């Protein structure tokens, strides 16, 4: 079965379906509904036997590269730290097909936002290469 990464982003990706304020500006009950949905997605994936991993990333980012012999690593926060893509976290799933991965990603994207409406968040779906050669 192929594995997929369903990547969520703090910023970047296609034009948002519609603008949504940051979550700390939402009404408390909308925040609760959103967080409850995220717990529910994790439980659903586990019950389905499709869950591999789920992680959240902090928004702090450091770019780093080798500094050369006897030099410290070189770091920067990027050429355009305010606008570049920034991943926020992922679900890794193990599913029957790409179609199923897209279906689950769409479900993740339906998470509620203010007023109980779907968030329509863009989810970045990436297939994970398998470690062993295929048998076919």
């Amino acid at each position, binding site marked *: 079965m192929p594995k997929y990464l369903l990547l969520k982003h703090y910023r970047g990706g296609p034009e948002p379906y519609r603008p949504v304020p*940051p*979550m*700390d*500006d*939402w*009404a*408390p009950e*909308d*925040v*609760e509904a959103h*967080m*409850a949905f995220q*717990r529910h997605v994790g439980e659903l994936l586990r019950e389905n036997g499709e869950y591999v991993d789920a992680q*959240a990333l*902090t*928004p*702090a980012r450091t770019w780093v590269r080798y500094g050369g012999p006897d030099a410290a690593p070189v770091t920067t926060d990027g050429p355009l730290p305010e606008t570049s893509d920034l991943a926020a976290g992922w679900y890794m799933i193990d599913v029957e097909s790409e179609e199923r991965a897209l279906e689950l990603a769409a479900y993740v994207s339906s998470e509620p936002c203010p007023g109980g409406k779907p968030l329509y968040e863009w989810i970045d779906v990436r297939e994970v290469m398998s470690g062993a050669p295929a048998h076919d």
Partner: protein
Amino acid sequence: MLEPTQRLDEGALRALVPRVLAALVRRGEEFAAAEDALQEALLEALRVWPKHPPRDPGAWLATVATRRLVDARRSDAARRGREDRLLERREPEPAGIEPGDDTLFLLFCCCHPDLSPASQVALTLRAVGGLTTAEIADAFYVPEATMAQRISRAKRALRERRLDRPGDLAVVLRVLYLVYTAGHVGRVDLAGEAIRLARQLVLATEEPEARGLLALMLLNHARLPARFDPDGRIVTLDRQDRSLWDTREIAEGVRVLRSALALKRRGRYQIEAAIATLHDDAASPEETDWPQILAWYDDLVAFSNDPVRQDPAAVLGRAVAVGHVLGPKAGLRETDRMRAVLGERHRWHAVRGYLHELGGDLPAAAAAYAAAARRATNVAERDHLVRQAARARAPELRSVAPPRSSP
């Protein structure tokens, strides 16, 4: 010791691990090899004991581990198979093991100052706690192979060190506290394990800080049932259902702390335990004795030359106490003085959010909570801070009383 008919429970088996291991190492066996041999003996016990329970489980383990050590030296596979078959029928001769201060001796080995903290923790949980590599890996969310490698590297590092001198108790205490604080996330109850190890340590040393650490763990652990709601959300101290607190654990913690303070050698853990006691003692948040808490924080901060850098948790806790005793503005002024050093830490912003809320400035509180959420490194804390921000921004809250206890 156990009756042959009695089933040996896991706790009793694990309690034997440090005693048997210490006996082997004291007898001159190499730590790493002895630890491997004992692990094999434990596996063997699980296989053999259900049908042939030993009269003296500790002696059985010591004898089987000794055979493994001998076998390992001979590396004679055929002979090993024959002895395995013999073991199933015949109980080995007892070998002398002494309880004594084995725990302390082993903790000094595992918490050798030359090892990294991650290695000290892993080795302690395995060699003293008796947890399996798989359980330790599970607790820290790393692959089992990674944890196995970390443990074997640590044992290899110990191979070149002398283990017959007394170790550094401060390192042991720090390792146990690390185990305790890691204990709220994983599937293995590391907090309970840390308390169990600290109890053993207190039996082995008179050092008041060991008691202080045990008391601190007990007094914090007592509040654990109230700290999360059924959905896993953080519940702050001022909103906890205090009837859920474990009064027996609080009583034990207070007793242990008193015995430590009676020795008249104060240390950080004793002081932190004293602060925890004052929180645990209050029947409601309003009854919290903030002036006393502030006095203890003054003592705690005085332990460091540069407390803002060396002990940020203490200076931030003190700022909250100042906020309660001298008013939120005074508390905020305390945090202003730490901005240059702690201004990027999520706790600094969370404390300011709390103090703003205490002073009734909800827009400033919301902004500070949101800034804290952006810097949080733990999902439960991040979610909690986002909720705090949303709550402080919600118009209906503006008439509600501010929180009354620490964040």
